């Protein structure tokens, strides 16, 4: 039982560790151009 508890705790630690040390960030750029030529932007 102790070994199982130890393994479970280890898994939780690994999971938490992965969440706290992400290796990627995502930047999202929303963009527009030529709103003049698009359908009435105020409509």
């Amino acid at each position, binding site marked *: 039982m102790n070994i199982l508890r130890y393994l479970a705790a280890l898994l939780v630690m690994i999971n938490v560790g992965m*969440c*706290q*040390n*992400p*290796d*990627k*960030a*995502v*930047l*999202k*750029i*929303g*963009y*527009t*151009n*030529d*709103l*003049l*030529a*698009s*359908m009435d*932007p*105020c*409509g």
Partner: protein
Amino acid sequence: MARRATVIEQNTAESNFLLLVDAGGFSRGMGEISNLKTGYLLKMMLEMEYAAINIGYRDLTAGIDFLDSLRQSYPNTLVSGNIVNAQTRDYIFDPYKILTLDAVNSHHVPYDKLKIGIIGLTDTLNYSHHRTHSSIIPDIEDPVPLAKAWVNKLSRRVDLLVLLFYGKYQTLTTIIESCPQINVAIMGAEYYRAKKSSADEMPLVTATQALGKYADFVEIGLDNNRNIITQDITKIAIRDSVKLNPKIESLKEEYQTKARELVDNRNR
């Protein structure tokens, strides 16, 4: 715009850093109602938290005094790195912007801040200044050497460089070839010539193709050292079933009331 605002809100919730920009070509032209419409469009864009709006040569037809009043009303939003006062040669708008973006979910990101440089440039194509009663006469300088100057000034100070360009695709290509530090280029005017960049193409060049029908996004994945590791372009259809953003919708109603008043006053 009210549906676009909702689509943007729904599709950016999972990103760590968010930026909204316009490459130019937003102005409705000269005249009271056109200026009212352009003014409200800008109000809506600011409500949606656009960080930078580039001035294209076509936008100058709204009248430089009107654009200057918008610049004063919304400081640090309108950008142009090559529209100058013909007499003083001073830049009329901010040539560039340096933005420090805060991470939305900081515990899921390797860093909580990202520094972005945004440069605005326009071509001189088809530009003719409307010589009205403007106190400022604008002139457009060659964007190619200026692009290099602004890029050299900013590239070491930021993590990513974004170019907003309004004009010929050929001019943009020349700029990109001479400025390899540019990471993303968004263009207007000859938007139909901007081919979809492939995943490993640098810099990523893009433009909205089906005007008004889609909300377009560039998604960039960055590693621990803020280097680009993935890039993708997505577009989301703005369907009639999309919920209207109440703040944008209320601005639209305000605009419609003011436009009606203008027409009524004219007919009296």
